[in-house]
């Protein structure tokens, strides 16, 4: 099953490679990984999307917690949460595709952020599923380039991951 893990870790050189090294050394999957500093510059917040059985996810969580630089780990799937991913997608926008691409971007609440005579670059935000659905919905042949950030997640309501 797909899980979204939120990790608070020390913003130190090498901390990211420890996390990534752990996943490769123990043969865990990484579907996506995003990381950046938080409002507290000494801390980074990482979101890892992974998949595996409950036992594997339990081991991943424990192994992550064992890393000295990891402050806290939560499995967002354990309760209500919100997930967002951003995609920049450059599509061919010529002839009848030009209108079609504009229409599809509107339907998916995307924004066209760069326009040339032949291309549009569309910014699209949503769950990873929604971004996937957009790619499925348009003609593969018009896609020139896609860039996805990987999912970021946060717990709903009062649930907060902080020191």
């Amino acid at each position, binding site marked *: 099953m797909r899980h979204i893990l939120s990790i608070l870790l020390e913003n130190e050189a090498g901390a990211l490679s420890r996390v990534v090294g752990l996943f490769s050394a123990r043969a865990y999957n990484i579907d996506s990984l995003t990381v950046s500093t938080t409002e507290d510059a000494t801390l980074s917040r990482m979101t890892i999307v992974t998949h595996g059985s409950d036992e594997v996810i339990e081991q991943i969580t424990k*192994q992550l917690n064992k890393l000295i630089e990891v402050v806290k780990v939560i499995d967002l799937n354990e309760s209500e949460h919100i997930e967002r991913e951003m995609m920049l997608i450059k599509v061919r926008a010529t002839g009848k595709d030009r209108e079609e691409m504009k229409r599809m971007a509107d339907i998916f609440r995307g924004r066209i952020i760069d326009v040339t005579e032949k291309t549009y670059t569309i910014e699209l935000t949503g769950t990873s599923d929604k971004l996937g659905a957009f790619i499925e919905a348009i003609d593969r042949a018009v896609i020139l380039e896609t860039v996805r950030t990987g999912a970021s997640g946060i717990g709903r309501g009062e649930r907060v991951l902080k020191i």
Partner: protein
Amino acid sequence: MQISGAEILVRCLQEEGVEFLFGYPGGAVLEIYDAIFRQDKFKHVLVRHEQAAVHAADAYSRSSDKVGVALVTSGPGATNAVTGIATAYMDSIPMVVISGQVATPAIGLDAFQEVDMVGITRPCVKHNFLVKDINDLAATIKKAFYIAKSGRPGPVVVDIPKDVTQQSAEFHYPENVHIRSYVPATRGHPGQIKKAINLLLEAKRPYIYVGGGAVQGNAAAEVTELVKSLGLPCTNTLMGLGAYPGSDPQFLGMLGMHGTYEANMAMQYCDVLIAIGARFDDRVISVPSHFLSQPKKIIHIDVDPSSISKRVKVDVPIVGDVKHVLREMLDILRQSGQKPDAGHLAGWWKQIEEWRGHNCLLYTPSTELIKPQYVVEKLYEITGGKAIIASDVGQHQMWAAQYYKFDNPKQWLNSGGLGTMGFGLPAAMGAQLANPDATVACITGEGSIQMNIQELSTCKQYHTPVKVVALNNRYLGMVRQWQEFFYGTRYSESYMDALPDFVKVAEAYGHVGFKIENPSDVEPVLREAFGPALKERLVFLDFRTDQSENVFPMIQNGKGLDQMDLPPHMRDVQQLPFENNRDYGNMC
């Protein structure tokens, strides 16, 4: 007053009470070696290969309550240390390894003797540091020692660039460490402890399974009290030997791949199991599904949450320091005065005695060939069971574990997790330095000893009179045994040809050597080697042992704990499951 980074490092080691620093100099650590030259609070031990420095520091830790420290130079010095670091990591041994690094401006430029030590060791350390700023040096060393010895112990590497050792700064050694992201567990959950006690008291066939965590966690006294006060059977893992006294009747022997028949059968057929600082690894329980096919409730006490429910899902996990948790259990048991049902326990012991009655460690004595088991038995007798035994890896390691009955923790030093050949001699040396008055023996084979034989030189220099007991069968014995069993006796590259004359080798290094070929000479030569006349000498005993001897019992890969290959005299023992006589098939 400002002092150099090298001097800061030396002061830090002094503050930590370091007694011996095992190391080897080189370009990147010259400044540190100069600072070592100008101090006299700790002693430097110059090994002959960096791997040995790390094994010696590791065994210094294993055989004492202190943290072993090694110092190596950058590049090849650092990479040579990696096997030793991984060895300590797999066995959770507290250790600090300091490696030199090229100067910070040169890092990443493929400088001479540059290697990314932090990157290379990342998967085999508890933690590692690259010190880029001299102002962080003292605090980093303090953290390194704290991390190494707290929680589940392990090796910590501190990589120090040469320019950091040359710069100057004020020295201030922090008194305390606080790492907000690292708070090891101590006390176990009281509710879980109560649950564990209730399960134990209701058990019909209780069993205690003790691992290296009880040795490292200094919980041997508590383990012994628990086992004794409740009258339970107990087994130790290879790493746990000595945590419960090996000569006690409640001890069923080591369990696992080469464990005793009774220890393995009890593991399979117990109904309540308490695992103490043990991790259900593949060499212990073999196949988890087969192990669990016989229903049992499992209580697991461990300081490392990630060891719990890793290979086997447990019923009552207790995360905490094993000593603390056992103390609390003992207190509750003492106050309530409760004991397990005596009738059930008597029935369980009756079954165990029946298993034990087969005497699975019996071997066929010989008047012509030296049996390796006989050598270990005699060694046990002659040293009164009191020697510190450092072992290498292979058949001799298993015979040492089976036939030397360790009554005390930290008496048995071996590379259980990584299985590092070449560990024995430097380990014996480190243990002798930590325990100058103890008798220290290195049980080894002619294969393993040659992987770090150069340390005979270090032993000479530092007067470590260890006794090398080489069980020399002219084969890489464990490889040969597997080839005999599973590869149609095709002994591919497992024969040790062109062996040196070990007596001459020992003598060349300034030691004493004996070659023993007759069984009748085993005892007298051991008595001489361990006698007063040679007390201060390193003695190399080259025992020419029976080439065909195999280690039994043995659990083949993929087989269960009750599906052992048994020694010849037990071949007709039907390994039928206890109680329900269910046939599992595939029995040997």
